[in-house]
C-alpha cells in the first residue's frame, strides 16, 4: 500500500517536472516579453496565489492568441515566469531579484498582498523595472515615492465609504456596529478605515475586537459582541476566518441586521462553504462580473472577458482574478502606447495612461495607485453575488436580516 502510494506520488512529481521543464524550453525560442510573477503557490496564501496565476495565464494566453504584443515594429510573444515564494515575503523579494538579474524579465507582477508588494517593490525600483501590483490596496505601499510601481486596487477607503453610505441611508435603525478584525495588514487596515467611515456617520462602535492570525475559535469574540447587541457586524479576514466566524455567529446566536465581511464573500469558495449561512452577507469588491465597460484592452468588453474566463475556467471571475488579468492587460496597453519594451518608456506610458478596460477606467494617481475605480457593493443571495451599488450596474436592493 505504501509503495503504491509512493510510486503514484513520484509519478506526479515526474509529470509536474516534465511539464514545467518543457514550458521553460518552449518559451525561449521566439522573440518574447518575459514578465516575472512571484506567487505564493504553497503555504497559507496558496489559494490567493492560485487566483493570481489564473488571471495572468488567461491574459498571456489571450494576448498570444491575438498575435502577441506589437511594439517597436516587432511582435512579441508573452511569457510569464513564475516563482513560488511559499508565502514567505523575503523569498518573494529574493525571487523578484532573481527574475530580474537571472531570468532577465522585462516586467514584473508584484507578489500577493500589500506587505509583500511593498517589500518586492524596493527591488524592482532599484533595478528600474515597471511592476504592477494586482492585490495591494493599502496606501502605505504606494507612498514610498517609488516611480516604477503601479497598483490596480483603489485605496481602502473606497471600499468602506460606499457600504457605510448605503446601510445608513437605507435603514435608520442600524446604529450600533461591532467590528471583528484579523490582526494582519490588510484586514486590520480596512477595519480601521471602516471605523473612521462609520464614526464620521455618527454610528456607535460597540465593539472592536482583533483576532490573531491562525485563530481556530472565535467563540470568545462572538460572545462578547453578542453582549454588546450590535445592529451590524463588520468582520474582516480571509476566507477560512470568515467562514468560521459566520458559523460561530450562527451557533452562538449573534444575529444582527447586517453582516458585512471583507474580503471573503467575493470568492466562490466562500459561498460554497457557507451554504445557506452565506445568505445576505454583504461585502465589497474592487470588481464584479456584473460591471459593464467597453475596454480598449486585449479582452475588450467586460462581457467578452467573462466569456473568455468561462471558456477557460468555467464560471465567473472574482475581483482578485480579474485584477490579475487586468494587470496584464494594462501592462500590454502601456507597452503598446510606449511602442517599446524599454522599461523607462513603458513606465512613463503607464503613468500617463487614461483608458477604459474591461476592468474599469484605468488612470493611476501620482503615487502609482489606481484612482479611477468604483468598487461595487454586493450581497450574497442563493449562493450568487448580487450587486447593490453603484446604481449603474445594480442588480438588486440591499436586504436586511429580520
Amino acid at each position, binding site marked *: 500500500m505504501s509503495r503504491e502510494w509512493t510510486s503514484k506520488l513520484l509519478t506526479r*512529481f515526474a509529470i*509536474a517536472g516534465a511539464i*514545467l521543464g518543457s514550458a521553460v524550453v518552449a518559451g525561449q525560442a521566439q522573440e518574447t516579453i518575459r514578465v516575472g510573477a512571484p506567487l505564493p503557490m*504553497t503555504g497559507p496564501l496558496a489559494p490567493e496565489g492560485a487566483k493570481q496565476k489564473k488571471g495572468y495565464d488567461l491574459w498571456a494566453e489571450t494576448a498570444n492568441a491575438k498575435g502577441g504584443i506589437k511594439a517597436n515594429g516587432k511582435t512579441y510573444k508573452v511569457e510569464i515566469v513564475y516563482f*513560488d515564494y511559499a*508565502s*514567505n515575503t523575503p523569498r518573494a523579494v529574493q525571487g523578484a531579484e532573481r527574475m530580474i538579474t537571472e531570468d532577465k524579465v522585462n516586467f514584473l507582477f508584484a507578489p500577493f498582498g500589500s506587505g509583500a508588494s511593498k517589500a518586492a517593490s524596493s527591488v524592482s525600483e532599484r533595478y528600474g523595472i515597471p511592476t504592477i501590483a494586482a492585490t495591494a490596496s493599502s496606501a502605505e505601499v504606494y507612498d514610498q515615492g517609488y516611480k516604477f510601481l503601479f497598483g490596480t486596487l483603489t485605496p481602502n477607503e473606497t471600499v468602506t465609504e460606499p457600504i457605510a453610505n448605503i446601510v445608513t441611508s437605507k435603514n435608520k435603525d442600524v446604529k450600533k456596529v461591532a467590528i471583528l478584525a484579523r*490582526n494582519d495588514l490588510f484586514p486590520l487596515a480596512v477595519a480601521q478605515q471602516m471605523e473612521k467611515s462609520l464614526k464620521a456617520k455618527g454610528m456607535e462602535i460597540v465593539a472592536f475586537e482583533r483576532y490573531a492570525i491562525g485563530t481556530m475559535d472565535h467563540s470568545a469574540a462572538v460572545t462578547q459582541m453578542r453582549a454588546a447587541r450590535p445592529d451590524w457586524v463588520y468582520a474582516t479576514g480571509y476566507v477560512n476566518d470568515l467562514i468560521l466566524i459566520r458559523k460561530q455567529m450562527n451557533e452562538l446566536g449573534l444575529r444582527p441586521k447586517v453582516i458585512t465581511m471583507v474580503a471573503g464573500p467575493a470568492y466562490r469558495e466562500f459561498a460554497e462553504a457557507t451554504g445557506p449561512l452565506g445568505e445576505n452577507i454583504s461585502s465589497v469588491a474592487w470588481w464584479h462580473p456584473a460591471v459593464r465597460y467597453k475596454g480598449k484592452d486585449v479582452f475588450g468588453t467586460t462581457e467578452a472577458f467573462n466569456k473568455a474566463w468561462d471558456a477557460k475556467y468555467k464560471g465567473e471571475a472574482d475581483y482578485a482574478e480579474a485584477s490579475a488579468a487586468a494587470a496584464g492587460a494594462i501592462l500590454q496597453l502601456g507597452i503598446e502606447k510606449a511602442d517599446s519594451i524599454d522599461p523607462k518608456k513603458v513606465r512613463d506610458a503607464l503613468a500617463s495612461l487614461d483608458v477604459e478596460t474591461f476592468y474599469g477606467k484605468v488612470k493611476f494617481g501620482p503615487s502609482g495607485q489606481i484612482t479611477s475605480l468604483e468598487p461595487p457593493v454586493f450581497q450574497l443571495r442563493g449562493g450568487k453575488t448580487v450587486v447593490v451599488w453603484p446604481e449603474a450596474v445594480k442588480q438588486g436592493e440591499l436586504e436586511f436580516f429580520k
Partner: protein
Amino acid sequence: MKRDWVILVCGAAAIGALGWSGDNYFIRLLTILCMYATLAQSWNFIGGFAGYPSFATAAFFGLGAYTSGVLQNQGLPILMCWGLAGLCAAVFAVLIGGAILHLRGHYFAIATLIIAEMLREIVNTTPNLTGGGMGLNLPILRISVDVQSRVFLLAMLVLAVVTTAAAILLQRSRLGFGLRCIQQNESAASILGVNAYQYKTAAFGMSAVFVGMAGAIYASWVNYIEPPDVFDILIAVKPLVMVLLGGIGTIFGPIIGAMVLLALEELVWRNFLTVHAAALGVIIILLVLFLPNGLFSLLKDLSAKRAKQ
C-alpha cells in the same frame, strides 16, 4: 587546529572573491549561504556540542531582526543596532535558558519551539512598536544596488567567519570539552566537576548571539520583516538539517551542510515549482534513513571500503 584556521581563511577569501566578481543574484545566494552557515554553526553549539535539541534558532533570529528593526527606526546607527540585536538575543537566551535548560530531550525541544511562538505572538499583538501583523519596514540605505548587495554579503561573511572561529576555539577549549561530556553523559560529567548548568547556559547564549546578529543583518538586507517570516519554524529546522547533512558536532560539517542544502533548495525551487516542499521532505527522509551521520560518513565508508580491498 591549524588546518582548521587555514581552511577557514581560504574559504572566506574564496567566497569574498566570488562575491566581488559575481552578479547580484549570485551575491544574494552567497549571502544566504553565509547566513545559513551562521545559523547551522550556532545551532551546533547547543544541539551538536551540548546535545540539546534546540528549536530556538527561529526565536533568536526573529528577536534579533525585530530588535534591530525597531532600533533602526528610532534612528540608531545600523552597526550599533546589529550589535545590540546580538546582545539582546544572548541575554534573552541566558535568561530563558535558566528556566528551561533543566529540561531534557522532548521537553527541552518543545520549550524552545514555544519560545519562538510566544515571541511571534508578542510581536503580532504589539503593532505600535513592531508593526504587528503588518510587518515592519526598515530605513532604506541610500547607496547603489551593487554596493548594497556587496556590503550585506561582507557583513554576513564576517559573521559566518566569526561564528566558525568561535566554533574552532570552542572545540579546543575547556568549555567545548565540558559540553562534549554533557552531551554524552550529563550526570557523569557533573560528577567529574563539570558545572553542567553554567556550561549549557553558555552554549545556549553562544547559539543565540550570532543568530540574533544574523537576524538583524537579514532585516536590514531585505528591508521588510514580518512575524511569520522571521519566526518561521523552518528557520529552526533548516540548521538542524544542515548539521545532519554535514555531520553533527564537527567544525566544517555545518558549512558543508549549508552549501548542500542551499544548492538543493536552488535546484528544487527552480525545477519543481509546486512540489519543492515535498522535494525537501524527500531529501530529509533519505538523509535520516540512509545517512544519519551526514555526507562525510558516506565518504568515510567509501574510503574504508577501499582500504579493505
